[in-house]
């Protein structure tokens, strides 16, 4: 099944024009105590513009490593990562990253955190202000615009972290288990908010999760990875209409298929 869907998707991608992101024959090895760790082996991945892709896999299979390579925080040992056809050489504002631990600047208010990238890139003051205002409105934190990160809940912090990369014109948003530390209710709300942001913009999202349900709920396509060494073992398109019903039959079928891909088929 995996091979067929892979083929189907290759065709789909070809039709959609050149992919915004390409990972080509990437290997990644880390020096570790007592030798080397092969974190990724021969990884190929293409992401189309506007696509929502979820990366899923067991702990240690290299999801974070792959995302960090795309983000430009790590360099591949072999192979290359292309963004809009050009090799990635380091982090950049066109590839916004949302960290699980938020990574907000504690000395800046919500507003200043959202303005940060625009200011760093020397955008005119008027643009900075109106853009920040717009995103504060979108994430519903107008009342907290002047609060500092330590005064916010985890969900609020993650909204700010998302807003600051979107305000900064990121074309691709890389999210590493962004909702993993949040309670279930907050997580569901943020999933909805993320989907509506994504569908109202031309955004491309690459989203790491280890929750199968989250992946099916969000993704156009789910990329399954396996450990030892980390590699892509399947790509599964999700052809369910949104909003998706988590208790529907096709949803559950997909859930079962993915569980089998991840843990081996059920007995």
């Amino acid at each position, binding site marked *: 099944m995996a091979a067929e869907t892979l083929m189907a998707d290759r065709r789909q991608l070809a039709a959609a024009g050149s992919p915004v992101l390409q990972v080509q024959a990437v290997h990644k090895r880390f020096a570790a105590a007592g030798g080397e760790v092969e974190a990724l082996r021969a990884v190929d991945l293409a992401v189309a513009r506007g696509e929502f892709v979820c990366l899923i896999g067991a702990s240690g299979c290299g999801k974070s490593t792959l995302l960090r390579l795309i983000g430009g925080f790590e360099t591949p040992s072999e192979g290359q990562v292309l963004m809009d056809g050009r090799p990635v050489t380091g982090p*950049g504002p066109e590839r*916004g990253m949302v960290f699980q631990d938020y990574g907000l*600047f*504690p*000395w800046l208010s919500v507003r200043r955190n959202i303005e*940060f990238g625009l200011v*760093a*890139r020397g955008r005119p003051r008027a643009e900075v202000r109106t853009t920040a205002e717009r995103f504060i409105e979108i994430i519903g934190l107008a009342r907290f615009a002047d609060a500092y990160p330590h005064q916010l809940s985890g969900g609020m912090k993650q909204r700010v972290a998302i807003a600051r990369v979107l305000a900064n014109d990121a074309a691709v948003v890389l999210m590493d288990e962004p909702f993993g530390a949040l309670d279930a209710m907050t997580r569901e709300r943020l999933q909805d908010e993320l989907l509506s942001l994504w569908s109202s913009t031309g955004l491309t999202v690459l989203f790491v999760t280890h929750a199968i349900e989250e992946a099916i709920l969000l993704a156009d396509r789910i990329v399954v990875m396996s450990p030892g060494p980390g590699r892509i073992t399947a790509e599964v398109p999700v052809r369910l209409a949104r909003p998706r019903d988590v208790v529907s039959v096709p949803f559950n079928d997909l859930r079962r298929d993915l569980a089998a891909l991840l843990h081996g088929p059920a007995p």
Partner: protein
Amino acid sequence: METRAGTPPGLLAAVFPAALLALWWGATRDAPDGLIPQPGQVLHEFLDLAGLLGNNDSFSGTLWANLLASSERVFGGFLLAAVVALPLGLLIGQVLLVRRMLDGTLQLLRPVPVTAWQPLFLILFGLGSHTALLLVTLGCFYPILLNTVFGVRNVEPRLFEAAAMLGVSRAAMFPKVVLPSALPGIFTGLRLGLGFAWVVIVVGEISGVSTGLGAMITDAREVSRTDVVIAGMVTIGLAGFLSDQAILLASRRLLRWSPQHGG
């Protein structure tokens, strides 16, 4: 651990000094001319030192001039230390080459106490307020330097990544990320430094100067005026406390964002 709610913190803070005072009072009650003066006598002397009683012994009314002289040395020495230690600390923290060059020397000199430097300073800079001021500078120097280096070296690595992906260049990392991150450490250093300055000043004024609270205490000891000695100690305590409060106020304003410092 939080104490019971409802007890005003000011009241709580007053319990221990009040107990000490009572102990002192009780211990000296029957000996008005003993080696240790009574609290009332010290208060009386304090007022006389401040020139409020119109007495005319050799210490009457000298408190303000001495306090001013000490304050000048304390703040002068502190500022001098800050002016040198802050940029140096930023440099050592940020630039590997400078760290490799200076770290060994600084670590070797660090254990040498201010009192050990004093004879050398007296020879180098002579008797006078220069020496006292420079001793204060030395006393403030290490707390400010080490905490600044610590602040610069302990920036949360995630913040560099966040800044880089938002478009901050390598060159701009220092003002955009390092400096604000290091600010709490810098303030800790300044606070410790200024606290130390009030400790060192007494040492610095023991010999070679005729003004200052340290000189006043030394003079009083030589003529067995223990009441003046204790009044001088209280003055130093109060001055140190007030200058610490001033730094705290500044850090509360500047570090409002930090749960450990703000509010």
